[in-house]
């Protein structure tokens, strides 16, 4: 009889504890589920906004392409000869000389290390 006493007390405490645990568990699940849904609604709204801005971006891209087209730019500078395509007589083409020039006297290590 003396041995059974602690178990009796334990079983008396466990039952309400388990019931509380189940209740808390159910409420937590519901809370988490609703939180998850709320997040999904938020995401859905952001996605819709994203789609809207992507649409705007496409419109702006098309507008930019039209404005930057060579025909448009040339049209805007019509009459200013040579502004778009340079006069070939005035263009000087530089060719790189492959041979190295002589070294400049210097105490800098960096320059001395050059081939």
């Amino acid at each position, binding site marked *: 009889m003396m041995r059974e006493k602690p178990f009796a007390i334990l079983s008396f405490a466990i039952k309400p504890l388990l019931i509380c645990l189940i209740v808390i568990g159910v409420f937590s699940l519901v809370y988490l589920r609703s939180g998850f*849904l709320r997040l*999904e*609604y938020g*995401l*859905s709204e952001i*996605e819709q906004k994203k*789609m809207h801005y*992507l*649409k705007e971006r*496409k*419109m702006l*891209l*098309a507008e930019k*392409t*039209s404005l*930057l*087209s*060579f*025909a448009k730019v*040339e049209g805007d500078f019509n009459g200013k000869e040579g502004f778009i*395509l*340079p*006069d*070939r*007589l005035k*263009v*000087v*083409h*530089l*060719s*790189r*000389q492959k041979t*190295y*020039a002589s070294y400049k006297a210097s105490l800098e290590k960096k320059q001395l290390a*050059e081939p």
Partner: protein
Amino acid sequence: MNKKREIILHTAIIFSFVMVVLRLADLMIINHKRLAERAKQQHVKVENVPARRGIIFDRLGREIALNLERESLYGDPESLNLTNEDIKKLALVVEKEPRVILSKIPEGGRFAWIERKLGPEAAEKIRALDIKGLGLLPEAKRYYPNGDLASHILGFVGIDNQALEGTELQYDKYLKTAGGKIFLGRDASGRTLSSGVNTEAKGNNVVLTIDEVLQHITEKELDRAMVKWRAAAASAIVMDPFTGEILALANRPSYDPNRPGSASNSERRNRAITDCYEPGSTFKIVIGAGSLEEKIVRPNSLFDVSRGGIEAGGKTIRDVHKYGVLSFQEVIQKSSNVGSIMVGMKLGKERIYQYAKLLGFGEKTGIDLPGEVSGWMVPPEKWSGTSIGAIPIGQEVAVTPLQVLRAYAAIANGGFLVRPHVVSEVISPDGQALVSFRNREKKRVLSARTAELFKDILKSVVEEGGTGESASVNGNEVAGKTGTAQMTNPLTKRYSKEKYVSSFVGFVPAEDPKLAIIVVVYEPKGQIYGGVVAAPVFRDIADKALSYLDVPREDIPQRNALLVMQ
């Protein structure tokens, strides 16, 4: 008493449980399929994933065909009850007659398009009208931001974005994509949950070999020529002679691919590859290159053309001017018909045919655009008595401008026949290269020696005393050939005395060719000669193109800059 109550209570509880179990069995076993389907319909929304065609870029990555987001107006005839006032308001927004709108709404059915691809402002106005039975659906509209620029290369699409012409049609399998379906969760009020996936399917992008600026230069010069010569039509092609990349291809008349419906068949025709013409003197490349390759003539071989005419099959062919004794180089330089026929007779009809075929005449070039024709080259066994006097000077043959350009590109590149193409690669929407069309095959058709000799002869055509003097570009040597051909009158089947095709084909700089260009002007008024009508167009295109491409002048030595590496 208590016992009795207990039994009643137990019975009630058991009965309740049985009822619950039965209901559950009804819901979960007997009617499960039907109810699950209903629940799915209520909770899951199926939407079409919008499919967007890939973008078309020019060779430097400038967009020349893209998509715009538009909304299309539809009606549900069963629930639609339009008042006269509604129709008037609607007609005002979509800019159509009220009767046109009414004609689009059938008596029955649940769906009918009223107006496709409305602009954002019109869509907003319709939404504000709030008419029951009307709805808007998003759709993509193909948009060509440069209007009619490169329209014959780009082609166009139909109202459902189905490819109909040009690159759009040729590369449709890469550009188009299937949208598919997407399943979205939704609540009782219809609000959708996040899909978590990309809600737009994009086709692959296509990169053209065309350069927007070179294309603009070519089209502008062609427009000028059309006005100046009051021509019926014109074509011009600019090509890299070593790779076959088409840098510009233009035809006049032209059309705006944003409104293909308002263009006529003539405007939509890509004459550069679909129209055949008798080339005239530009075809002298066949007897010229052929006789040099066969070592029948040398540039200084002499031909007596002093009679000014030659008879072939009872028909006398004459030169425009009377010459004396001409060297082979001068025969080509002055475009002597008599001299060319003499060379042709030396070469023989079998070899003329062989070299015409080798240079790509009478067969498609294989350009990646729809509708190319092969032209017409009669085999020697079917030649008539006059053919030996006609074919060497570019009559009794039909060619396309692209075929002629390809043949001259073979001279420019040292003897190789290239495959012209307008697309360099296909890339995925995220920029990964999927297919590359660079480094296409090329076939040697002439020896390097022949190409070099004929190039020198072509250079003399553009020098003083040649027929193509007005094609010369300031600062760079040009090699080329003029062509003037009579058109056939379709009614009399004889050569017309009023209608001519004037052309010039060549490449520049002659010693290190960057561009091969052909200009063909159909039915010019006032002047007929290729050297007068087409050669200046060649010069203007070449001059501006070389400036744009930063090709140095050959008459101004490059200044050496001493660059000291740090």
